[in-house]
């Protein structure tokens, strides 16, 4: 069966510091991968998605970036965090649209 991992689970970072969140998927090959952000009490906002190694599509312009160095690894990064980057970050995988997406446990990021 497929599993998706995210780490760290929680993170507190000062404004201006760098960020690296990692997501890995097991049990499937060539998945589509997604990064979402969920602000407190809000819905999910798609940030990036990837259909293959090195292929990244950005949905929202911001100071975040994503990379996919391996088939089942998806990384979310920032060079300098802003207060507005605080939120709950969720990684997801799917077999591709129109199939459902399966989500990881999330990373709760607080920028102070």
């Amino acid at each position: 069966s497929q599993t998706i991992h995210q780490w760290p689970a929680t993170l507190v970072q000062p404004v201006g510091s760098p960020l690296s969140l990692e997501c890995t998927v097991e049990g499937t090959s060539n998945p589509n991968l997604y990064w979402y952000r969920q602000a407190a009490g809000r819905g999910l906002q798609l940030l990036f998605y990837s259909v293959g190694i090195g292929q990244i599509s950005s949905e929202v312009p911001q100071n975040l970036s994503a990379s996919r160095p391996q088939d089942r690894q998806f990384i979310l990064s920032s060079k300098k965090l802003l207060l507005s980057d605080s939120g709950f970050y969720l990684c997801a995988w799917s077999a591709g649209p129109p199939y459902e997406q399966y989500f990881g446990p999330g990373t709760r990021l607080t920028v102070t």
Partner: protein
Amino acid sequence: AQKVTQAQTEISVVEKEDVTLDCVYETRDTTYYLFWYKQPPSGELVFLIRRNSFDEQNEISGRYSWNFQKSTSSFNFTITASQVVDSAVYFCALSAYNNNDMRFGAGTRLTVKP
């Protein structure tokens, strides 16, 4: 443009009551897919159901049922005989065929009291 509206921000019921969560969507696509997800307090989204735009049959899975009506652009979710473990935020989502951009509603927080 695609849009999903969940007008009910919060719902509170007492255990064993039935509850319906509303979802209204907007899309210009003729082929699209609708989804429901559950987000318990732990935070991880759990997939519940996927429905395509050509299948309007109602779906029942245990205490859960879904009513899809294209005429009113709605995909409502009913929990029968609610339980405390049903307490969560529920999201409705919409995706056009072959489109990676899945649009989520703002979610409905359901609290089931014992």
